């Protein structure tokens, strides 16, 4: 049995906002099947009583003094934008007509 189906890969691609053509999906499904079967080895050693480690360091929240510091100017922030209008990011339609 395969570790992951082509339909699952297509679903994951949609969730990941990747508009993949059919041939790319075919190739990815085959490769991911091999990779997922290999990485599933972690399940053999992971046991219930082992605490997870999400990070190499003990993480605590870090605060800085509540002081205003200069940020980017609007021109700097917009300098790399694909489209700009009236000093703002111009983006494609976000909400549907009916909403």
């Amino acid at each position, binding site marked *: 049995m395969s570790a*992951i189906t082509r339909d*699952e*890969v297509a679903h*994951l*691609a*949609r*969730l*990941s*906002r*990747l*508009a*993949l*053509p059919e041939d*790319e999906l075919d190739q*990815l499904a085959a*490769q*991911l099947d*091999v*990779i*997922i079967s*290999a*990485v*599933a*080895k*972690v*399940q*053999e*050693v*992971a*046991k219930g009583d*082992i*605490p*997870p*480690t*999400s*990070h*190499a*360091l003990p*993480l605590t*929240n*870090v605060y*800085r003094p509540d002081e205003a510091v200069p940020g*980017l100017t609007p021109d*700097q*922030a917009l*300098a*790399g*934008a*694909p*489209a700009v209008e009236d000093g703002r*990011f111009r*983006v*494609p*339609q*976000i909400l*549907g007509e009916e909403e």
Partner: protein
Amino acid sequence: MSELIRLTAAELGAAIASGETSAVEAAQAYLDRIDAVDGEVNAFLHVATEGALEQARAVDARRAAGEDLGPLAGVPVAHKDVFSTKDMPTTAASRILEGWQPPYDATVTARLRDAGLVILGKTNMDEFAMGSSTENSAYGPTRNPWDLDRVPGGSSGGSSAAVAAFEAPLATGTDTGGSIRQPAAVCGLVGAKPTYGGSSRYGLIAFASSLDTPGPFARNVLDAALLHEAFSGHDPRDSTSVDAPVPRVVEAAKRADIAGMRVGIVRELSGEGYQAGVLERFHEAVELLESLGAKVVEVSCPSFATALPAYYLIAPSECSSNLARFDAMRYGLRVGDDGTRGAEEVMSLTRAEGFGPEVKRRIILGTYALSSGYYDAYYGSAQQVRTLIKRDYDAAFEQVDVLVSPTTPTTAFPIGERADDPMAMYLADLCTIPTNLAGNAALSVPCGLAAEDGLPVGLQVMAPALADDRTYLVGAAVEAALKDRWGGDLLSRSAFAV
């Protein structure tokens, strides 16, 4: 060709400080070298010809004005194209960031500018630092100066190739699963992965945030230590930056004395799947350590066997989240915005066109590992393995001061050999990944050429977190002893030797 590019970074810095030469002459010498050989090597994505000379003139002016500058002032450096530079493009070797110029500098970039280093340009890499060969660059592969048909390692392969081809005396890289140590090893260089949090991630294009660590490449241990010290230290702009003194790596590189040091050989990082010539050089290096007065024992780290699978769940999971920022709205590529499509469709078209195959593979793998229903079995289990690996290191470092292994299972492989086989490619990081998962310090130092192919082999030295100095101490001792044995540097035997 200028004699200046033969000098070590330390020597070049001293020659500039004494007035024997200038930052401008040094920059020009390296720009000439890049011009002469980079057509073959393809180490650089961007060469800052005018910018480098301008920075060099500024350093010479600061010196003339009597400013007290550091040991590397005026010495050129090449940056991996993952560090933000406000005066040159930063692409992470991806189409999605083609031509993008950041509005600010990374902390590593800014600190090296302040120390007077002159930026020669930006080096090639695997796209978003995902890969072990630099073949995943959207701008063509980089070639290994030892053999132009082979990979220079990765993901920081442009940096390793640039330093090995004498196109730069120093370079920066990032190490998420071995992306500094592995390319350093296969190009015959010194490369270090500092303790996680010891070098700032601010302004670094993120791949896997709990693992990404900036570090140095150099042709010798002292130069690597000087670069390491120049960009390290607490950074309030990185919430995971460690607020502790920088380990004294320069002092360790100069001391180079390992008498009485306890060294552990990791049993699990050897044996089947390792190239015979790599193991031969490794065993020789271990004998050398003993002859220098180290006490060598074998130690077992059983969980290392599961480090690679754990890494290929954790790193893709973090990448799938980090790369969500490339949404075609605020910067970078935008595809299909013809007025008929909505934002989500434009986003999906842009990401499909802007990301290369390996990046897409990892985004989907990470999305899978984090999805409800699979989270516990995959991401959760991988995090438990991470705990086991940390425990193995803790137990080992109760017995020994440092651990050693080969840096890579094989020497540099031919371009194209593993390009269609992701699992084979992933194996290149077999020995380096455990250090990243635990957040420790490690360094790779050249230990000779493999008999069967005449290509460089690296010795990996691993130390506990914040004990980076121990890796430099051992590296410098090995380097000095081998230089005596060989009657010169390893790099002097490369086709690109100067």
